[in-house]
């Protein structure tokens, strides 16, 4: 951590960046995002297992952009999000500095986005065993049981859109739910609209989701909605060889192979 703080301080002192986006101690036992703009404030930076918020979500926030060039403290999920966002032309090497953090909590600085991409080759997305178990359990259910499971889980959703707001990939200025001609997703929260919203969210994230769990962590009523994106990740692995954020490879869902395999089209 000292290395990270030292580097952050340097960057701010030399004016190489205007803000360091990192984690700090929050209230109670919480951690939260810190926007360090003065070198003397780098001591606020922390990193530990509680720091699960995906900071990449702030890179597209207008107020943060207005501060100037940022450096971002980036554990693996943040690194993945950065590469995915960069591949979607959200930023380039010139307007972002990356202060990486390894799974062993070691500081590693990246000079180029391409280096991050190479680094991530050693850290491919793996669905955690605990989640795999839940997915398997759901797979074993009958269609009706699964339907009832999701109706029950999604019905309480009151559409605060915290899942969307916490997701670094949900950066659209106007989300489909806010489009009303036609109104694809009902504005009020009710069973049908909730199912449609979460279904659509998962579809829009298919092939882009970096499995950071920010959505599920953000949900105030603890809906396990990350299971949906995890399922798409699994399917992408089975059908298209798996997802990994890449700067050049094209997106899973906007590319194709003429010999993509399926067994359901007549």
């Amino acid at each position, binding site marked *: 951590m000292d290395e990270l703080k030292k580097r952050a301080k340097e960057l701010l002192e030399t004016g190489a960046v205007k803000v360091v986006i990192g984690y700090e101690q929050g209230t109670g036992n919480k951690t939260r995002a810190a926007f360090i703009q003065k070198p003397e404030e780098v001591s606020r930076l922390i990193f530990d297992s509680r720091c699960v918020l995906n900071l990449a979500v702030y890179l597209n926030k207008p107020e943060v952009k207005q501060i100037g060039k940022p450096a971002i403290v980036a554990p693996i999920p943040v690194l993945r999000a950065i590469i995915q966002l960069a591949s979607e032309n959200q930023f380039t090497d010139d307007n972002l500095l990356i202060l990486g953090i390894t799974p062993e909590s070691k500081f590693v600085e990246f000079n180029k986005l391409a280096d991050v991409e190479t680094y991530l080759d050693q850290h491919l997305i793996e669905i955690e065993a605990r989640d795999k178990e839940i997915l398997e359990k759901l797979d074993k259910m009958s269609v009706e049981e699964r*339907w009832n499971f999701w109706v029950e889980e999604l019905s309480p959703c009151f559409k605060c859109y915290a899942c969307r707001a916490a997701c670094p990939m949900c950066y659209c200025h106007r989300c489909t739910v806010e489009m009303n001609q036609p109104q694809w997703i009902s504005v009020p929260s009710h069973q*049908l609209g909730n*199912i*449609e919203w979460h279904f659509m969210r*998962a579809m829009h994230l298919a092939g882009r989701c970096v499995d950071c769990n920010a959505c599920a962590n953000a949900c105030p009523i603890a809906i396990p909605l990350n299971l949906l994106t995890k399922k798409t990740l699994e399917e992408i692995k089975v059908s298209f060889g798996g997802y990994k954020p890449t700067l050049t490879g094209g997106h*899973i869902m906007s590319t*194709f192979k003429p010999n*993509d395999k399926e067994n*359901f089209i*007549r």
Partner: protein
Amino acid sequence: MSEFEPKVVAFVCNWCTYAGADLTGTSRIKYATNVRIVRFPCTGRIDYMLLMKSFAEGVDGIIVSGCHPNDCHYTSGNFQARRRWIVFRNLCDFMGIDIRRIQFSWVSAAEGAKWADVVNTTVTTIRELGPYTDYKKVANYFEKEVSHG
């Protein structure tokens, strides 16, 4: 009670399946009348939300059909669509949406007989499955008093 007549909607591409369905008609091949055809420029244009909305509006089954691989009028629309369908279908199944009610097919402009067969088998399947009550129950939220959570 009167016998259940499935309501089926077909989303088809303009260049192959729609022409194929036309051929079915001009060839005087008889097929189930339960299907309502909606024509699209290309299968790539068939948004999965249209399928979701169809169930919400009360259909019991859906057919999605377009040009065979390599035959797309726009070169690759059907390839793009196929990728989406693979993920869509899997996610549907995971969420408990009955994928036996969604039939995907490739029907070319020359396959009038195949179109009739696709429709007939789909309608038969849906007839066996019965009305899609699980989805309708959720979609008919407005019948209930909407409140308390």
